[in-house]
């Protein structure tokens, strides 16, 4: 086993383990931080699949942005008197059964589909990944790229409006 192979398997185990602990954790804050570990693990796996630009985007957008929002959400909605932001399970047995059955079905389909029988995953692409992504963004994917920028602007305005509206209502009630 080479060093790369050991690291690759370590990242797989880290991601799967953190995900599993997150799924059975009762504490929301722990779950949010374990999601952090899962996202970092997935970013590491992107690098092994020769997608460096995507790995960096994952760290900046997900870990730096999305997760901050999640932790803000936890802090703002947890009842602080209880000290520990716990959550309960509902439909535990049916939910676990559905998830297990789905997992087994997916594993079976992956083995049966025949995608594994063709050639091996390339260990490393020789071309410059970031350059390729940049060229693809401004040629084949120009329309989705522009649409996504409009989406982000709309979301920015919409999220700000949604968060602001309640304050106006409170002022109206106070008057």
């Amino acid at each position, binding site marked *: 086993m080479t060093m790369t192979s050991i690291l*690759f398997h370590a990242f*797989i185990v880290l991601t*799967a383990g953190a*995900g*599993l602990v*997150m*799924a059975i954790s009762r504490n*929301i804050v722990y779950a949010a931080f374990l*999601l952090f570990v*899962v*996202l970092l693990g*997935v970013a590491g*796996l992107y690098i*092994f*699949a020769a*997608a460096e630009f*995507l790995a960096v*985007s994952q760290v900046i*957008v*997900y870990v730096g942005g*999305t997760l901050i*929002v*999640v932790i803000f*959400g936890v802090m*703002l*909605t947890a009842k602080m008197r209880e000290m520990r932001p716990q*959550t*309960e*399970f*509902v*439909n*535990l047995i049916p*939910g*676990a059964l559905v998830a297990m059955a789905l997992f087994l079905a*997916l*594993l079976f389909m*992956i083995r049966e589909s025949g*995608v*594994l029988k063709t*050639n091996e*995953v*390339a*260990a490393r*692409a020789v071309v410059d990944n970031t350059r*390729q*992504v940049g060229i*693809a*963004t401004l040629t*084949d*994917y120009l329309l989705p790229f522009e649409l996504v920028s409009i*989406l*982000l602007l709309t*979301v*920015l305005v*919409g*999220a700000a409006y*949604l*968060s602001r*509206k*309640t304050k106006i209502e409170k002022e109206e009630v106070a008057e």
Partner: protein
Amino acid sequence: MSALELYLSLSAFLFCLGVFLVLTRRNAIMALLGIELILNAANLNFVAFSAKYNGEIDGQMAALFVIVMAAAEVAVAFAIVLNVYQRFKTVNIDEIDTMKD
């Protein structure tokens, strides 16, 4: 096991954990964390197949757009969750069953 099989299996595992979180948690935030796991599982598949067909960048571009969508989704979802919390004083999904309080 080949690398592709490991990627696909891990992706299926993360997807099922996400489904489990969405199905079994009362807290809306935990359900949203489950959705994040599901989106990441999909991304992992896109990237694994992009690596398998070496030189094809399309899988990575799809994953990139999914990351942007996820960021947008989280921003709007948490604005809604905060509004729901201020109105109902809870974010437990099974208690929020009316259009207004």
